[in-house]
């Protein structure tokens, strides 16, 4: 379509809003519009340049980030200073969710690889929200909990298969 006409018949622009973006996240997908508006008020939108550090391994974290646009690289650094890349995250992914509930050190570093917009949800805001608006906060926390426990489940399944593999390897070695 001609861009002129597509501009006129453009939808309301809800797809562009922060609330819509949040509703596409797996942990916030069960929230209704009012709760999304509430969530919109407690998150912080942060803009990052390319190659900027979001947080470093071992720092006391204070919250989680979701990627609205751009790209984030998660990596570890060993004693010699060599970096091993753990993951490259794309828009819609999230990271750092461990620090949302308790002040634990970050277990990996994160840095942006291009110009990135991150949406941060932090513990202090979450604690205040739990105190002031328990019902929507409980829903947000439940959604987060669902995602985190899914990850935990997958992790333990993987661990199980790895253990089995290890045991098989040991048996083979013993047989040989």
């Amino acid at each position, binding site marked *: 379509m001609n861009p002129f006409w597509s501009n006129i018949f453009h939808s309301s622009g809800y797809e562009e809003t922060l609330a819509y973006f949040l509703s596409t996240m797996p942990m916030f997908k069960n929230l209704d519009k009012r709760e999304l508006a509430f969530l919109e008020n407690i998150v*912080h939108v*942060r803009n990052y340049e390319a190659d900027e550090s979001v*947080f470093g391994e071992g*720092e006391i974290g204070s919250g989680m980030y979701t990627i609205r646009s751009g790209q984030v690289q998660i990596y570890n650094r060993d004693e010699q200073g060599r970096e091993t890349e753990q993951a490259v995250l794309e828009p819609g992914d999230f990271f750092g969710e461990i620090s949302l509930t308790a002040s634990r050190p970050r277990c990996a570093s994160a840095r942006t690889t291009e110009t990135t917009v991150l949406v941060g949800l932090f513990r202090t805001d979450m604690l205040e929200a739990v105190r*002031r608006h328990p019902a929507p906060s409980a829903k947000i926390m439940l959604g987060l909990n669902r995602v985190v426990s899914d990850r935990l489940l997958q992790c333990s399944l993987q661990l199980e298969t790895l253990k089995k593999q290890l045991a098989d390897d040991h048996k083979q070695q013993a047989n040989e």
Partner: protein
Amino acid sequence: MNSQTGMSRAQVAVLYLVLTMAIASGIAIYSSASTVTALLKTATAGLFLPILLSLIVSYLLDPVVYFFEGEKINRTLSIFIVYFLFFSLGFLLLLIIGPPNWKGMMQALKADFPRYISHAIEYLSGLLMAAQEHFPFITNYNLAERLSSASQSFFGLILKETPRSAMRIGSLLLLVPLFSFFFLRDSRRIMRSLISLTPNRYFEMVLDVYAHVSWQLSHFIRGRILEALIIGIVVWMGLSLTDIRYAPILAIIAGATNLVPYIGPLIGMLPGLVIALVDLGMGGQFWWILCVYVLIAQVLLDNFILIPILISKVSNLHPLGVILAIVMGGKLYGIVGMIIGVPIFSILNIFIIEIRQNRRSFNPYNRYFTNRGKLL
């Protein structure tokens, strides 16, 4: 010579130019900054007290507003409800008790004040005479004269300032509810937008430090004000049992001076004791009043009940810091500065402690935690 310093002629010239420019721009910045600060000072001259008071009021009212806030009632409506409740409560109190007889009390005080002062001076000069008998090398300081003139000028100042302060109180009555309304409604939004200005690297730290500082600050202010209020009420009740006059004024003085730690209560009980000595004599009532001031208000109530409950959660200042804060505040802003100095010092103290804790928590992770975040 140039070869000795290792610089060519051109380099020396450039260095000279750069230094001159640096000095010139320094002077320019300094002078413009001083004009700007002078402008700011005149612009904000009358706003310091109203803003401070409305900050305190908004800290005090925040829990009440939060109590009414809910699913159906948003924050603005809840603030209006709280305002309505407080104003109607004050109005009801005025209706029931009737407005206090300020004018009569003021006039009586005007008549009585010189008498109290002269008695106090008499007593003090007696003490001085005794001291001179024992230590003859103390020169005659002529304390009586100085004290009486100082007290006369002080009282004259109070009388002169009363109409002016009436206007100030009127403007405060208008400004403080207005300011505290907006502080109550929008403080979160204001602070969020301020915090969002911090660079990404320090954002998390600033957010955490702000949360801690505001928690400590709210508890500190609420605790202090409640403490002063309770002390004032208790002193009022204790004094009302005796025949002493001006019990309400003395109670207000006791409560207000209680905001200044250590020195405040001592100063606060002085006028009460003087009035009791002059009017009632060294009888049982005087000892009861002393008991009210020292034992009941300070030792029992403040030390054993109020401070452990209200203030113990907040990191307290070192006594030396308290005294420094009082002296410096008094130098800067007089009596108001003495009252404000300690809280401002405490705020700075809280800031420093929080930032230091946060920095520490940024550092020693490899000592207390494994790389994966488990406690060792």
